[in-house]
């Protein structure tokens, strides 16, 4: 990573400059003389006026200010930061795929549709579901689709009171937020000391208002919910349905399937388990799979097959559908990347993924424990991720999980997820993924060990970290209080930019 900050692109801008090779020929003012004056723009927008080289250089330099999988070990728990194969990008970006208009007739695009159809089939196979819709554009939208289907299902049965969604207290934030977006009320249930759902509390929570429960298994605590069958029985008995948050599917791919555990609906984060890139925040894709009873409610469109031809199934074919979640079919290009990846894994590769992701996590757990760290659930197997708690270190040395995280950056490693799940104090949620080598894991353990030693000898080095990043620790409080959300010409800023 570069250590040299880069000034905002607007500070390269000079009025009248531009990357003219990119512009179409000027059609002249007559070309737009039919646009009424009162509907026209007055002042030009504040867009950079830079040469092509300036733009390329600026953004290339910016890129070097990032950690990424391609450059750093990135054990961010719950995020599955595994290698994103270059092939997935190259083949999804073949000119024909890029050029295809979403409203093209089905006759134009049988090749593309074949990929999408087969992707649906593979996702059904790995989740043990009866039908799949590809359109949700991320995990959270998959959750939305799932809970919306659960609601639609109850409504269609005339079961109008069911508006409660149960989530374990360790659930990812999107779970309760999704419930709210679907007009539901959230009921949290605690987990026990072993990380399993507290069944007594669950028994108390379920009832005639229960629409469903949202779970991920293995849970966000990095352990497998062992009594999942019991949970399913209880919720089903109460008339509720089970939603599977697929964010952790990497842990069990080909080993055990949500449908077989009793789930009625599942989303899959293709940008986690199926290795489409995270892109600095997205795009992702969150296809949903459902059991037969929810199939009529799937979001549209879906790819169907009539004889040898692939076709779109829409509202016409699924009149009870919860509707459309996007302008077209969702993140097609992401789906293509996942398709390429899944074909490269094949059925044998899928199992290898979960096995080695689990091996790596358990190895890290063993070695970190040896290095003096406390597992949050020391009696449990880790899934594809593990949690350590630095509660002891925080108390004894005054060095927090956040300090460890920042200091890891100085060791050239991205930090694990911090302070999630919140119920584990001073936690680091560590997910190495199956694509990291033993040497990379050993280096991580060594770095953690070094930081621990440093925390004893020279705690300010740790609490003052990072020291080798392009910026020192950033003031989040100030960011929220003195909002500076857009660049303004010199003088207008509270904070001058660094160049």
């Amino acid at each position, binding site marked *: 990573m570069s250590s040299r*900050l880069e000034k905002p692109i607007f500070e390269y801008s000079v009025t009248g400059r531009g990357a003219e090779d990119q512009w179409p020929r000027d059609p002249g003012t007559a070309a737009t003389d039919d646009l009424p004056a009162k509907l026209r723009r007055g002042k030009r927008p*504040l867009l950079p006026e830079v040469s092509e080289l300036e733009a390329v250089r600026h953004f290339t330099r910016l890129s070097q200010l990032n950690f990424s999988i391609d450059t750093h070990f990135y054990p961010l728990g719950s995020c599955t930061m595994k290698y994103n194969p270059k092939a997935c990008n190259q083949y999804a970006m073949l000119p024909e795929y890029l050029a295809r208009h979403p409203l093209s007739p089905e006759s134009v695009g049988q090749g593309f549709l074949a990929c999408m159809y087969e992707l649906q089939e593979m996702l059904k196979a790995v989740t043990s579901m009866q039908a799949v819709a590809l359109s949700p554009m991320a995990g959270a939208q998959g959750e939305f689709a799932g809970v919306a289907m659960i609601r639609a299902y109850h409504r269609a049965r005339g079961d109008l009171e069911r508006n409660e969604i149960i989530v374990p207290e360790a659930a990812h934030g999107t779970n309760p937020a999704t419930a709210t977006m679907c007009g539901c009320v959230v009921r949290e249930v605690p987990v026990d000391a072993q990380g399993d759902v507290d069944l007594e509390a669950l028994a108390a929570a379920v009832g005639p208002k229960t629409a469903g429960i949202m779970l991920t298994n293995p849970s966000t605590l990095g352990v497998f919910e062992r009594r999942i069958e019991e949970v399913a029985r209880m919720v089903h008995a109460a008339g509720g349905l089970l939603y599977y948050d697929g964010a952790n599917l990497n842990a069990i791919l080909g080993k055990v399937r949500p449908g077989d555990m009793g789930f009625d609906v599942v989303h899959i984060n293709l940008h986690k388990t199926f290795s489409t890139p995270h892109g600095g925040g997205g795009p992702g894709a969150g296809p949903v799979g459902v059991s037969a009873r929810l199939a009529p409610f799937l979001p549209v469109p879906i790819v169907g097959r009539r004889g040898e031809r692939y076709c779109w199934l829409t509202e016409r074919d699924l009149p009870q559908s919860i509707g459309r979640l996007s302008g077209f079919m969702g993140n097609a290009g992401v789906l293509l990347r996942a398709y390429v990846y899944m074909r490269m894994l094949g059925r044998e590769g899928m199992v290898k993924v979960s096995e080695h992701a689990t091996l790596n996590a358990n190895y890290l757990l063993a070695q970190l424990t040896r290095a003096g760290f406390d597992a949050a659930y020391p009696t449990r197997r880790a899934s594809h991720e593990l949690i350590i708690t630095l509660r002891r270190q925080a108390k004894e040395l005054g060095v927090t999980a956040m300090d460890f995280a920042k200091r890891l950056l100085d060791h050239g490693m991205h930090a694990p997820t911090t302070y999630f799940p919140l119920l584990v104090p001073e936690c680091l949620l560590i997910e190495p993924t199956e694509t990291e080598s033993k040497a990379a894991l050993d280096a991580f353990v060594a770095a953690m060990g070094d930081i621990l030693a440093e925390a004893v000898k020279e705690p300010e080095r740790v609490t003052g970290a990072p020291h080798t990043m392009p910026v020192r620790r950033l003031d989040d409080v100030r960011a929220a209080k003195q909002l500076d959300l857009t660049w303004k010409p010199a003088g207008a800023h509270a904070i001058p930019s660094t160049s």
Partner: protein
Amino acid sequence: MAFIPHTRADVESMLAAIGVGSIEQLFDEIPANLRLAALSNVPEALSEMEVGRLMTERARLDGRPLCFIGAGAYEHHIPAAVWAIATRGEFYSAYTPYQAEASQGTLQLLYEYQTMMASLTGMEVSNASLYDGASAMGEACLMAVRANRKSRSRRILVPSTVNPHYRRTAAAVAGNQGLVFEELPYCTEEGCVPAGALARYDGEDITALVIQQPNFFGRLEDVDALCDWAHARNILVVAVVNPTSLALLKPPGEWGSQGANKGADIAVGDGQPLGVPLSSGGPYFGFMTARMEHVRQMPGRIVGRTLDAAGRAGFTLTLQAREQHIRRAKATSNICTNQGLLVTAAAVYLSLMGPAGLERVAAASHARTRELVGALTRVPGVRRLFRGPVFHEEAIALDRPAAPVLEKLAARGILAGLDLAEHYPELGPALLVCATETKTSADIERCAGALAECLREARAA
């Protein structure tokens, strides 16, 4: 096949360190009866070479027809630099910038993007993206409900000139929270919201009015009048706009009469025209900008500039208390992963275009569409459907059913436009057509010539 680095020796030494005899044993907490024997219905692994060949053959099968469909997704020129940069590993394979100090590249880029989008739409703040334009409209309606403290109705007026897929998506996204979308009819002669359509809502409690400009038919709505009407009644205005058009058209932030109340309250749209390939419909990105007063109701990530421990400027995610990972059930949205990489592409695109280039793109696209409509309406049996100004997209009427004609044209490698029958059957045989700066006069002549032939054949048959 699974990108796993381990040798057998690695695995063995790791198992020994864990203290188990086999990988299998690591799964021993999973109830045995749930365990899967084998994955059926997943084909065997292909090597990269094999999958590459498969993908190449399928791509060739699909070909690259000459395309005059727009309807919310537009084929613009994409500078080679855009994806050369966006696919750099450091952008492509990074996560959401939670560790700000190790993510200044993405963060600064987002901040620059926010600046560009805010200015382009004439608004004060921008988020760092939503999924796409359609879902962004849904989020905007939810946001309007939160932001409009003066209304309790959750009623949203949506003209039927708004993209039908956007309307359906907004209903799906926001319907579960009790929002009621009421459709405003359009004038079948003008293809716009008629001034009169609003009168019947005078005095009613309405939360927001959605205005798409240009509307689905490419027609320009009287945004000033609509905006003024809404603001006079404490109704928030949600603008749905095409970002390319904003190089020429009045930005939402300036709709309506001048004064304190000037401008839409929230602007959204699809960023696809800004350097994002058509790609069968995605990934695109939804943008959202708003007045500063509403910033705490915004969904999605927002980047702010702040200081580091040494007093230097740096960038970080801010106002996270709006978001699901902090606020959980009370968050402004459930959105987590957004469309960051597309925003990266758009930031590069907008930097290469600048204000002058974007104006050229808009003007050239508009000019080509005029040329196209001119050529098509010279074909016997084809006429303009609506009167009044459009931007770079227009509806035309045919004297024969559209679907078979379009199929024939497709067989000749031409996608002549979108059949309006599905969403607007009342219009009779009609197409929505669009040409961007990527089309030449020869392309247009080819399309017009082929259309003339196909119509002739249809009449003969």
